[in-house]
């Protein structure tokens, strides 16, 4: 029978060790997140960049690689626009992947470390384990993560422009909708169009398949959009 003081000391020690381990696992050692993010935590930023580095690496022919595609900024923008429930789902997905290596470790020393601390080869191994898992509900996590990041990566203006897949430059039309409704958030008195401003798409004819692309995609940086 241990002395009560010793028992208390041991219990406090165990709690402290656990707290330190959890703190080290979940919050310690992350670099500060870039300024201007509305939703993402620094741990989520670190995860996104770590995933982007292996999903969209250098040397594959596209002008912008994953870590330069401002994916945290894009994901943050996307999350800000989502309803709360869907925002939580995506944040839970990011958190799950950051720590999934606890259950699906990379086959290397330290393979259970959090995703953003793993080396590139170990990160690829974890993603492959999830993506090829026998259980479809696990596999779908990988599909979802890749979708969240791929949309932002391929949607980078420079990548779309390079592939010739950027939207066309089109002069905004004026239809009955523009005559009747204000821009979202504005009052009707802000409508500046009159009946004579209405445009006729028939008169404009088909676009040139190789014609100019939208000006927002002529720039190289996501920041400048």
């Amino acid at each position, binding site marked *: 029978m241990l002395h009560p003081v010793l028992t208390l000391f041991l219990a406090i020690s165990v709690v402290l060790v656990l707290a330190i381990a959890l703190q080290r696992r979940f919050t310690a050692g992350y670099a500060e997140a870039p300024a201007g993010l509305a939703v993402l935590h620094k741990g989520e930023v670190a995860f996104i960049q770590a995933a982007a580095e292996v999903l969209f690496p250098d040397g594959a022919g596209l002008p912008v690689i994953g870590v330069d595609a401002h994916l945290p900024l894009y994901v943050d923008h996307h999350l800000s626009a989502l309803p709360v429930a869907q925002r939580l*789902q995506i944040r839970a997905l990011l958190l799950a992947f950051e720590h999934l290596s606890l259950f699906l470790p990379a086959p290397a020393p330290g393979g259970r470390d959090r995703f953003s601390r793993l080396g590139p080869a170990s990160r690829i191994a974890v*993603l492959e384990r999830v993506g090829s898992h026998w259980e479809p509900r696990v596999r779908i996590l990988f599909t979802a993560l890749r979708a969240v990041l791929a949309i932002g990566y391929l949607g980078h203006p420079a990548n779309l422009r390079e592939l010739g897949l*950027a939207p066309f430059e*089109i002069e905004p039309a004026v239809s009955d*909708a523009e005559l*009747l*409704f204000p821009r979202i958030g*504005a*009052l009707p008195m802000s409508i500046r169009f009159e*009946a004579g401003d209405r445009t006729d798409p028939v008169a404009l004819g088909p676009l040139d398949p190789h014609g100019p692309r939208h000006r927002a995609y002529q720039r190289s940086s996501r920041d400048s959009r």
Partner: protein
Amino acid sequence: MSAEESAPREPEAADWLRAARERVRVFAQYDGPIEEQADVVVVGSGPCGAVAAYELARAGKDVILLEEGPPFTVRDFELDGNLSMTRTMREGGLRMTRGTTMPTMQAVALGGGSLVNSAICVRPPDPVFERWATGFDLERTDRAHLDPHFDAIAEFLGIAPTPDAVQGRRNLLFRDACRALGVESEPIARNVTGCRGSGECFTGCRSRAKQSMDVSYVPAALRAGARVMTSLQVQTIRHSGRRVTGVAGHAVVPFSGGRRAGQTHRFRIDAKAVVLAAGCTATPVLLRQSGNLANRSGQVGRNLQFHPGVAIAGVFPDQVDPQFGATQGYQSLAFLAEGFKLETLWAPPPLLSMRLPGMGPELQARYAELPRTAVWDAIVSANRSLGELRTRPWSSNPVLEWRLHPDDLAIVRRALHVIAQLFFAAGASKILPGVYGVAEEMTSADQARVLDSPAVRPENLVMAGNHVFCTTRMHGDPTRGVVDEDGRCHDLENLYIADTGIFPQCPSVNPMWTGMALARRQALSLAERF
């Protein structure tokens, strides 16, 4: 009458515009509780609701058209497909079915789904209506009775086949593939006038060539005297005995679907009749949350059906330039008897990229092939795959339970194989079937045989279910359906439903035109009754 005589003179046009603008309400105008009266309130401004509002207003009724979403002008469109969905779709475009997991969407914008669909208009073939008539005790829901309504809508919207000049190569390759295999195909008829081939139907037509409801039927309803109130979410259908007395709810902040203290005022509209056109997945929620209204049959929310869609990407040896061309320009109805319809498809490339397999350099190499890629899809008439819609506490968004039936899975497999054959007939160097458990890339029609085999399982498919049906189905027998052939609820004298929820079964083809034809018939009937 000459064109000059028929065109309104400028002062007349200005008068109309001024009067119509005064009948529109947007979120920024709401500064206190709202109370209105009308003959008819139409809930939902998608294709069915907009047609109903227009026809009722034209018949001299005092109509209020309610819409939960905001009106979009061209400058409100978002070119990024992902961000566009967060603005135009319920649940930010991330709604999924449970059971067989599949994304499904519901637009929330003035004009509903017509703002962000590809404008496909197809009349269901006779066998569809024959199934409906015999299986659901319907006497007047056939081509003979509905063709006048289809025709009237076609004339109003200028529905016409997609011209070759805006097909683009990815659509014409499909035509050539069909010819090579002796499969009938045709340009898709659409409610589009003056398409420029920008391929951006899904993010909103910046050319305003697409005759979505916000540029066609809604302005026409306003011209006929209707009032349009946007950013108002109906939460309750008010009723007394066998009659409904109106609707109530609150304003919602655009894009949030939610409230903001001091800005999201309550509203109440009293009406002699209510037309629910909130959509197949929203109307049942409203009925359930209004005291399980119109549900003596127990069918509200049941019989949920989809047209699950599957697609294959085909990579060609030379440039396809897929960004140019009608979003969906060509189709084949040759396999309708087998249970599927084939179409061409394009979407914002980042959205398409979601289904490309792999990661790292392999994935990026596939992105680099997108300029040589076309995507063709099949929608499957999955009328054996029945699901159920359930409500969630404190939410206007439903839970959708649905599973792909083994017989319908067989149709999916067959459709995938046919698409693969078409790609190789068109000269594709490889295809990406997007099915887990089979080769990520296939380079011959022979290799693609596996797509029509048990290797293709429901959990291995990437499907989408954007046509939703039957949750308030029409049935001649009040114990087996929710509404009659005029869309009137069996249980109530003055509550109508006008959306694809009333379809007795999935129609095998894109449903917009059929829904509008049914809505037009209902509106004319309702106008006579009141």
